[in-house]
């Protein structure tokens, strides 16, 4: 009975809207008047290990608690990657780039009724940049330029820098850096791992570990008439097919992270116009790390051969429907301000489009390095099908064409981290990087000497120098030049094999309005502008 009624309502609505306004754009950001009310039901693929985003790296924590908090700056929910204020209403950066002064909005209150002032912002950033003993701060390195945070008066926050930093401003818009009230942090810096006191558009309502997470509307939110929703509720299910079934049966109306295209098609087939699919590129790059402390990967010729033999362009076509991996690019996301031009990229080993030539060159290099008949090697991987294993299967058969026999060894997440990042007990390993925005600091630090995410353990002083210079380069065009130069060194020496850039497909019911999917599943989760056209 219910599906028909819903269908009828939708049809009526479509007819009505159709007669009044032009067809809505894809994401449903129509010129309709937002409707107040309703609880947004969402499916989520993991549970949060803790509720403190400062200490976590998983989207599960972010998606659940983002609506409960505010941050200093934010990435514009409706237009990534534009940065706008959140708690900060205006700001000034000194000409030498060493002092950032933020004026805070007046009258913001935490959900416990206490006012949000500059001391809370200072306490928050002190926790992130200079974490006390026993408190982890996973993104601390992104703020290494900060010398001190000061709160000269209740509505002013000043960041003093050790050196000018090109990325700091955008890193202050990190969705992870939610503002906590100081008085709770003073009592226990780990208080927010299991408690919530925020100032966001929603208040914490209920959390059943491993099952559901709920927030309810904050009537005292500092932006008038927001949020539109009465609340939101996440259902945790680790099974993709179950989340897809939940969307199809209307038990959930949105899955924020991403859905494999096969499921997307099935959902679209059942629900037709009732669902909207927002497909975006994603700020995630999957690739292969080569352990450069062991033979034969100490030899640049071998590394180059492996990257040359991998047909990226075919991979993008084959893997896209399976694993959502599609775009060929360097170390910065293609088609962004930081990316190299295609012409430049195609000159680098492995990015040329003539695969016959690439393979011949790869074989020649292998023979020169003393492996005329190729070699056997173990490729370690994470035992997650999408996209890790699909990607590995493709790469392995590419390498076979030049005589390299790679044995695929998928590992459980813990072992994968241990072997790849911690102990370097691997020859080749699939790994990826996923960040909340296209920032060179976030994406390139992993290629510097001794960085924990430099799984390949290579060291090139030129890269270290270029990284340090680009992070201080305040002129964007100069910075781009340095970034591209760094990229070229990594790619020409085949220190790392970048694979493909991921894409994101967010499926939601058409009644979920005003959610614009950014190219990652970390930002734009505050839901203050989202509304439902019906319950």
């Amino acid at each position, binding site marked *: 009975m*219910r*599906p028909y009624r819903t269908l009828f309502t939708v049809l009526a609505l479509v007819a009505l809207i159709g007669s009044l306004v032009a067809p809505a754009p894809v994401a449903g950001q129509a010129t309709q008047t937002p409707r107040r009310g309703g609880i947004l039901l969402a*499916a989520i693929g993991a*549970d949060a*290990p*803790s509720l403190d985003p400062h200490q*976590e*790296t*998983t*989207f599960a924590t972010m998606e659940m608690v983002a609506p409960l908090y505010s941050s200093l700056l934010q990435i514009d929910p409706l237009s990534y990657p534009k940065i706008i204020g959140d708690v900060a209403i205006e700001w000034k950066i000194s000409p030498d780039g060493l002092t950032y002064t933020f004026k805070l909005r007046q009258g913001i209150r935490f959900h416990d009724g206490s006012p949000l002032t500059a001391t809370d912002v200072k306490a928050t950033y002190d926790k992130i940049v200079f974490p006390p003993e*026993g408190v*982890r*701060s*996973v*993104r*601390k*390195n*992104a703020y290494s330029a900060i010398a001190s945070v000061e709160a000269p008066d209740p509505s002013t926050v000043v960041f003093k820098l050790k050196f000018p930093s090109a990325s700091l401003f955008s890193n202050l818009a990190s969705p992870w850096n939610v503002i906590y009230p100081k008085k709770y942090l003073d009592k226990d810096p*780990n208080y927010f*791992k*299991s408690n919530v006191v925020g100032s966001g558009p929603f208040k914490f309502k209920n959390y*059943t*570990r*491993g*099952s*559901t997470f709920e927030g309810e509307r904050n009537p005292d939110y500092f932006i008038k008439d927001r949020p539109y929703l009465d609340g939101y509720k996440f*259902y*945790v*299910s*680790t*099974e993709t*097919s*179950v989340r897809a*079934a*939940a969307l*199809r*049966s*209307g*038990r*959930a109306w949105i899955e924020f992270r991403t859905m494999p295209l096969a499921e997307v098609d099935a959902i679209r087939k*059942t629900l037709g116009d009732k669902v909207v699919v927002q497909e975006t590129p994603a700020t995630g790059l999957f690739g292969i790390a080569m352990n450069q402390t062991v033979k034969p990967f100490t030899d640049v010729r071998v590394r180059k051969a492996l990257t040359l033999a991998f047909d990226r362009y075919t991979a993008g076509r084959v893997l896209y429907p399976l694993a959502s991996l599609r775009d060929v690019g360097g170390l910065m996301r293609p088609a962004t301000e930081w990316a190299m031009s295609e012409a430049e990229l195609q000159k680098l080993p492995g990015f040329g489009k003539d695969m016959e030539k690439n393979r011949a060159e790869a074989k020649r290099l292998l023979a020169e390095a003393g492996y005329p008949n190729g070699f056997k090697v173990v490729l370690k991987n994470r035992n997650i099908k999408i996209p890790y294993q699909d990607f590995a299967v493709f790469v392995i058969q590419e390498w076979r064409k030049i005589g390299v026999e790679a044995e695929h060894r998928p590992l*459980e*997440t*813990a*072992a994968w*981290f*241990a*072997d790849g*990042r*911690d102990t370097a007990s691997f020859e080749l390993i699939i*790994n*990826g*990087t*996923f960040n909340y925005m296209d920032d060179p600091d976030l994406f390139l*630090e*992993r290629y510097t000497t001794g*960085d*924990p*995410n430099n799984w390949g353990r290579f060291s090139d002083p030129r890269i270290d120098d270029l990284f340090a210079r680009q992070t201080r380069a305040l002129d964007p065009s100069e910075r781009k030049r340095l970034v591209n130069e760094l990229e070229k060194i990594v790619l020409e020496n085949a220190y790392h094999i970048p694979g493909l850039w991921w894409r994101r497909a967010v499926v939601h019911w058409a009644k979920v309005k005003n959610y614009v999917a950014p190219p990652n599943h*970390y930002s734009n989760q505050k839901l203050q502008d989202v509304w439902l056209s019906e319950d």
Partner: protein
Amino acid sequence: MRTYIAKRLLLIVPTLFGAAALVFLIMRVLPGDVALLIFGGDAGGHIDPKQLAAMRERLGLDQPLWVQFGTWLWGVLRFDFGTSLWTGRPVVEELLIRLPLSLELALAATMVSVIIAIPFGMLAAIRQDTWVDYVVRVVSIGGLAIPGFWVGILCILLLVIFFGWGPPLEFTPPWVNPWANLQMMIWPIVTVGYRQAAVTTRMTRSTLLEVLREDYIRTAWAKGLRERAVVIRHALKNSMLPVITLIGTELAFLMGGLVVTETVFTLNGVGRFLIDAVSHRDYPVVQALIFLTASSFVLVNLLVDLTYAWFDPRIRYR
């Protein structure tokens, strides 16, 4: 009898100790480290070696193994299983959230399986080698052969495809809203119950067949008793002992949680908790869950042994 009970109770101590030691060691042998995983996650954060060392110290992972084991064992004796390394909450608290669901699933599935298995097992035995027997055998072999998760996913997909209906995604305890509870639990119960029924049906059938060939049954027939009296009063009672043992151990097994079924049906139960804990290297949780499952097996076995001893005095003197 009293000495027998005392002996059996004493035997529990080394058994449980052995189980505890084994679980403890296996978890430590696995590669990977919870401290690293806490810093890791899916974005690959930057890790400060000093922070990592501090974290290991805070979690007690820098202590020698025997100290860690001793501390844990002492806690277990006081029913304190420590705190989860992953969530920082007491293991018992985390467990209690999930236990009602797993218990309901285990008990209801066992009940369903008994209701299906005993009559059909009996029918198959009495009508051996007729079409009834064949149907029962085929269906029960199906239950053994088809993996539970597949039946589960099929259930969900068929409901969604044909009725546009999916089971609720959230567990409501039966005492809060029985109807909502039933909507969610019915399919997992049927899925698990089917598999259990398959096992029990086959056991009922074969033991009943054996008993039906006994001399005293022939005597009962010879006395001119009706079929119902022969089968139910004479044969069934005597054939039930192994069946009850089987049901008991299966129940103990089910109480340890059903990893796959719980995952497929988004049930937040003990089984899923265990599998998550293993992948997070959350030692205290894994140790507690395996230890408790082992304990429930030991307990059920003890009860079964005692029941046997009660029925059959010869066992006591073995």
